[in-house]
């Protein structure tokens, strides 16, 4: 009986191989091949052209701007994510589920629309357009607009990761810390933060990948001024539309590298969290 049951809950060898074959072909076609193609195209005319493409000043300024935008957006959303998760996971209050839904809102918004809302606010015809113009402040088609749009599209990433995690952990450890005489900050730094470190890193990595790679929202607010308001993805677009494929794929290869590193670190975090027996995600 035991033997027949065992066989009955497994597929035949042929079906197993068929499924694995279908799955791997699908993934190879849609994921493996494109990833390989990025690097292949980037190096198709040799290393020298690749380097030349990357050393171009406009490419450099795009790289710099991308790092600036992510460098501001990620910490902002990190602080927000921690504050939101602290309030939501450790306290009982009215309207909590509404708040959680609102935090998810940017995920439901098309990237283009995310950019559009800032145009409506800060554009020449926007709510604050005249005031900004009168005070000679340029938000739109400038770096602040790009940063804002980036913050918007990556808004939920870290909070989404931390809220269920901290809810699952409960508040007993924090209560224990307080009853042992710890202050609020001591409780947070010594008890809460170490408990959420893997989830936090996970959220930061994904947030950063999206921040550096965002295209639609940034495209709407950037104004596409070469060497000024172009991030790497926007620079890729310009080069591609100019049929400068080697340069386009050279810059794209950097972003693909970022994606690969992101996936590697993400797997590493998952592995570390599993190894230390700390759940990465909430229940």
């Amino acid at each position: 009986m035991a033997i027949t049951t065992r066989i009955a809950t497994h597929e035949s060898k042929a079906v197993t191989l068929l499924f694995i074959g279908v799955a791997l072909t699908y993934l190879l076609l849609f994921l493996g091949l494109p990833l390989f193609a990025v690097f292949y195209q980037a190096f198709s005319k040799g290393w020298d052209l690749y380097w030349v493409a990357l050393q171009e000043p406009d490419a450099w300024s795009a790289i710099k701007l991308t790092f600036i935008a992510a460098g501001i957006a990620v910490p902002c959303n990190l602080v927000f994510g921690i504050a939101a998760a602290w309030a939501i996971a450790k306290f009982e209050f009215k309207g909590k589920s509404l708040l959680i839904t609102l935090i998810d809102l940017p995920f439901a918004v098309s990237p283009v629309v995310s950019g559009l809302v800032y145009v409506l606010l800060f554009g020449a015809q926007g709510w604050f357009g005249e005031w900004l113009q009168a005070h000679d402040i340029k938000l739109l088609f400038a770096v602040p607009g790009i940063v804002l749009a980036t913050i918007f599209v990556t808004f939920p990433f870290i909070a989404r990761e931390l809220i269920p995690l901290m809810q699952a952990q409960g508040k007993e450890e924090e209560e224990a810390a307080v009853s042992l005489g710890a202050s609020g900050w001591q409780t947070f730094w010594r008890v809460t933060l170490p408990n959420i470190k893997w989830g936090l890193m996970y959220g930061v990595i994904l947030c950063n990948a999206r921040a550096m790679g965002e295209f639609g929202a940034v495209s709407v607010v950037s104004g596409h001024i070469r060497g000024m308001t172009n991030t790497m993805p926007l620079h890729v677009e310009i080069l591609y539309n100019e049929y400068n494929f080697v340069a386009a794929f050279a810059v794209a290869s950097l972003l693909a590298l970022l994606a690969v590193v992101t996936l590697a670190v993400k797997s590493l975090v998952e592995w570390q969290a599993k190894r230390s027996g700390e759940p990465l995600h909430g229940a």
Partner: protein
Amino acid sequence: MAQLAASSKRVTTRFRAHSVLPGFNLALGFTLLYLSLIVLVPLSALFFKTATLGWGGFFDVLTNDRVLSSLRVTFLASLAAAVINAFFGLIVAWVLVRYTFPGKRIVDALVDLPFALPTAVAGITLATLYAPHGWIGQYFAAQGIKVAYTPLGIVVALTFIGLPFVVRTVQPVLEDVEAGVEEAAASLGAGRWDVFRRVIFPAIFPALLTGFSLAFARAIGEYGSVIFIAGNMPYISEISPLLIVAKLEQYDYAGATAIAVIMLLISFALLLGVNALQWWTSRRGVR
């Protein structure tokens, strides 16, 4: 503890229950301020701007042929991509959970590539691959099928973008399906296909539907990966997000906003559906 947590949910007299932990006011205050400044106020601008059009103007934008075509293309391509992902995503999830093979961990990690790879990079790469002379496109071209620069290309891009959703929602649920249930079904004489159809599939169906809806919702808003491969022919392969950009470039802010509001409403409806689905399944005790 359990009874305490349960009873503290019943607090009706005060805004929040007492807690010894500090920082509530600061944390919630900052959360609400940040949420309002970054998300709520900007999004509300969308609706105020649309209001300036009036119902008539809004209706005119909606019934414009080009707008309708773009919505149709966006909707149908997203639907096709989500269906493809539901089918293959289920197989991928199944293979990743049930079978072992060399390199499985790398394959598993690779599934998240569309989350990590910037959409513009995906766009130019897919366009290159599926162009008539591209690595993949040439085989289609030989059959007389054009992929890139047609609605088919849009489906390809949206399939790439939505790939992880189904896999990642089905995977954990499939892991939770108890071997015992399957063994029980098998010992009662059910064949393998019967076991899948009657025992496993009902258990993972809500997750599959959730993954499908998420992929669908994501595809509707997608921009970066599509515009390179779509060809962007008005009435044929022009997606709604691109039309928004086009209207913006002509300084037709109200028109752009009207399309944005429609898309937003579609996305909300979808996410509402997902939430309702999750609420419904959690009530049934099935994840």
